[in-house]
């Protein structure tokens, strides 16, 4: 696969913006930290997939109002984080200037290999800057990077070392480590700011592709055409019909479902020998694969995710779930993902019975109806569960005679008899207990300590008995749809929606609830809405603009 940098050399002189000073007309500049996945994807898009990017070393960030994407707007970079990024940048730059790549990535031939060639370096820097920063470099920026390249090439008597140094500088620059959004007063809506053309393109590709804009999108930014509704609509459709939209879908659901918690998931191997490292990695993939299959490939309604019997399994996952999975994988082959459909009589139904939910929201050695109930309320219904009080006497709960209280339900009921605890546990536990037919490692069970498990309860005023009925209640609950729509919008703008935006989202919710909550349609409606590229008036304005 050709990298964008190579492609641009051949095709898109139109995008290049050599020596043009950027207009400095914006009134607001904000920063959203890019994720490790976006970092990796952008490097691969620009320099080719053969570049090894050890993005694991990068900090993940923190969750704000249910999303890492919102946290990213508040995230800065610690000393340790910067050190990681500098090490990563050195690693990437060293690969870019390796002899086998340099010929294709740097089109000009330097006058000498053992020193500086500013004009050749400038060509590379200009191209790399355009794609890494998703905008052309300004005259002074170009000069700055060429100087770095010049000094380093002379010092180390190596043209490539100069290129490498300039590239490192770009890769640790805030222009790359953050998605910089520049806004200016919206001519159509006085008092409001809207993103400029390049920032519009960045927000759009970040939202739909989880990556930086490609050449075509950048071209519409350069010409300013992206600011017109017609071209915006065209680009939204183009992006949504590209295979790269799968990256965007996976990134969004990984965020919404809290899959960053897999990094710290741990199961006691002696209690749950079936929960292997393979299973842990596969659990996350099972859900993402199912979501891609249902929402993109089959264009199913989002609400069906709660009740679909269709999924994908690996041999190890099937063993965990206790179901037979015919496999054809032979010696040395990659682990195959096999499409699998549960029978109607099974307790496996929808995303909520995946290990990525029941095992992720459990303790290492035992289940937790409270954690499961909380995750369901917060991640999928966008409801807030208050934090537990600081001082609780757990002795009554923990020291309870297990021979008397065989099931979690009995033990939790003891717990909930504490008035201080009762309020919140009423929110989480009744629905969390519906998942008790899956142990902490997602292995199905019907008894606990020999006693039958009671999975009946009440959700939103309706009685249910077991996970299948609960899943159907959740599917039909308006909160599930509204939560998805709000999360998707917030994810795209990296903040909570304003009051005005909420109104628009409410309308969208009513409409889609009737016509079907289809992923592409939802994305199209959000990304084509010009409001999506504005900055609400209530947000803080640029400090010195107000002074």
């Amino acid at each position, binding site marked *: 696969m050709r990298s964008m940098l190579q492609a641009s050399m051949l095709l898109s002189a139109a995008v290049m913006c050599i020596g043009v000073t950027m207009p400095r007309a914006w009134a607001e500049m904000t920063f959203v930290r890019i994720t490790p996945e976006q970092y990796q994807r952008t490097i691969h898009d620009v320099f080719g997939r053969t570049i090894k990017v050890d993005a694991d070393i990068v900090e993940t960030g923190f969750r704000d109002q249910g999303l890492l994407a919102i946290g990213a707007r508040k995230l800065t970079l610690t000393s340790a984080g910067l050190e990681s990024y500098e090490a990563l940048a050195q690693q990437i730059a060293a690969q870019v200037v390796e002899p086998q790549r340099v010929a294709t990535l740097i089109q000009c031939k330097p006058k000498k290999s053992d020193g500086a060639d500013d004009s050749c370096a400038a060509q590379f820097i200009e191209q790399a800057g355009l794609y890494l920063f998703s905008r052309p470099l300004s005259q002074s920026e170009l000069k700055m990077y060429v100087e770095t390249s010049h000094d380093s090439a002379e010092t180390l008597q190596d043209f490539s070392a100069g290129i490498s140094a300039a590239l490192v500088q770009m890769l640790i620059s805030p222009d790359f480590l953050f998605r910089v959004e520049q806004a200016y007063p919206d001519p159509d809506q006085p008092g409001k700011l809207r993103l400029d053309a390049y920032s519009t393109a960045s927000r759009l590709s970040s939202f739909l592709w989880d990556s930086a804009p490609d050449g075509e999108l950048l071209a519409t930014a350069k010409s300013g055409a992206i600011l017109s509704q017609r071209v915006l609509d065209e680009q939204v459709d183009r992006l949504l019909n590209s295979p790269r939209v799968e990256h965007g879908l996976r990134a969004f659901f990984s965020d919404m479902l809290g899959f960053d918690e897999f990094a710290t998931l741990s199961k006691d191997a002696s209690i749950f020998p079936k929960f292997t490292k393979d299973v842990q990695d596969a659990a996350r993939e099972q859900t993402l694969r199912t979501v891609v299959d249902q929402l993109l490939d089959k264009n199913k309604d989002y609400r069906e995710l709660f009740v679909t019997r269709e999924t994908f399994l690996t041999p190890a996952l099937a063993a965990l779930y*206790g*179901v037979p999975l015919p496999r*054809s994988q032979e010696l040395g082959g990659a682990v195959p993902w096999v499409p699998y459909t549960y029978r109607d009589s099974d307790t496996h139904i929808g995303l909520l019975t995946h290990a990525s939910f029941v095992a992720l929201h459990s303790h290492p050695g035992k289940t937790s109806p409270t954690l499961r109930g909380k995750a369901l309320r917060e991640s999928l219904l966008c409801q807030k569960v208050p934090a537990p009080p600081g001082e609780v006497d757990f002795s009554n709960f923990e020291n309870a005679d297990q021979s008397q209280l065989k099931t979690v339900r009995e033990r939790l009921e003891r717990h909930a008899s504490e008035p201080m605890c009762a309020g919140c546990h009423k929110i989480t536990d009744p629905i969390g207990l519906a998942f008790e037919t899956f142990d902490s490692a997602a292995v199905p069970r019907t008894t606990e300590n020999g006693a039958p498990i009671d999975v009946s309860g009440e959700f939103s005023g309706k009685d249910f008995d077991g996970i299948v009925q609960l899943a159907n209640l959740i599917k039909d609950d308006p909160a599930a749809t509204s939560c998805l729509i709000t999360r998707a919008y917030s994810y795209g703008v990296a903040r909570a929606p304003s009051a005005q935006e909420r109104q628009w989202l409410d309308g969208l919710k009513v409409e889609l609830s009737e016509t079907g909550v289809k992923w592409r349609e939802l994305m199209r409606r959000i990304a084509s809405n010009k409001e999506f590229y504005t900055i609400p008036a209530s947000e803080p304005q640029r400090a010195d603009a107000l002074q």
Partner: protein
Amino acid sequence: MTVARVFDPTDLTLRIVRGSCCAFAFVMSLSITANAVETRSYVISKFQTATYSNEGNCPHGGNGTPSEIKERILIDQGYTKQQVDYIISHEGRDENGNRVNTGTRGRLNGEPAYVGNFPNSIPDPQIETVQGKFAYGFNLDGRVQSDSFQDPETLERGIDNQRWRALGCFAVYDVRRPVVPYNEYIAWDTAIDAMPAWLMSVTGDDLDKDGDVTVTFDRSLNILLRDAQGSVLPGATFVVDSDPRSHSSFQGQIENGVLTIEPGDFAMLGESQWYAIIRFAQTHLRLKMNSDGSLSGLIGGYQPWLDLYYFLAVRGEESGQVDLPGVYYAFERLADGIPDPVTGQNTAISSAFWMEAVPAFLTTVSGRVIGEAVQPNENSHVGDVALSQ
């Protein structure tokens, strides 16, 4: 030594030597189509010689460790004790730095010959064989004789296990479960990550009760999976290989949670790292059905003793940890089953292995589920798997 003449030798030649080529290959899939029966299936997770180390097994001190075996071989070849110590402590090299190869101590037409391939190229070294009273196994010929053992757990008399008699005085076999003879441990642990798994199924009206059952063995097209602790993962699914060479079927009974079978023929292909093939005639089985759904116990019968010899010969004397010609001659001498119709020499030896099996789903190549992994507290899943799309 007694020769058990329990088979028609002609029939045996067909079965063991040529393998099972015909009729009974698809019995298992046919046998479970009736609705009233249930089939529980398993994957074999342990298979090891049923050893029984015991005081008095080897009154002459046994055949020793590899170093001791090597020492004896070198002294037989004319080296002094001092030279032998030097060679053994210098990774097999003599004072001049030359490699001393004990493996080629045989002589064929005056030329050196490798004793693994030509064990009778040297005279019988007369290894020590087990003289003790106890050994695991089965009474294969229905008789209690002076050379039978007594089972140390069931205390049954008349146990035929001449293979144990031949091997039990080598240090490597002088162990008791759970210790696995080192040569088998290495071979098995290496083989299972690459070898098609060995499958088993039990079919009957209600397997939680006493009654008649059908027991089948087959090889899979898939390898074993391991769990988070490196043991064999229960509950995985295996595709049954329709190759008749690894298929066998038996009538059996469950009584008080113990599974036994009517004697018959058993064959299972392995891998060269492990036994290339395991064959039993007059197969006996005694497996306990454990509360976690697994099976454990003994399988035994008469085995072609060359199959067993090849396992050791392939490993060589260093990692096999035996004296190969010694084992060869002992097997030949102690063999007690299936006489060759022409020479009258017994081609098989009585033997027993300890085996364990964990629940596993079995399917046909087309994905039809034909055996269920019954694990306590897990759902039932027999039936056709609906592959989506």
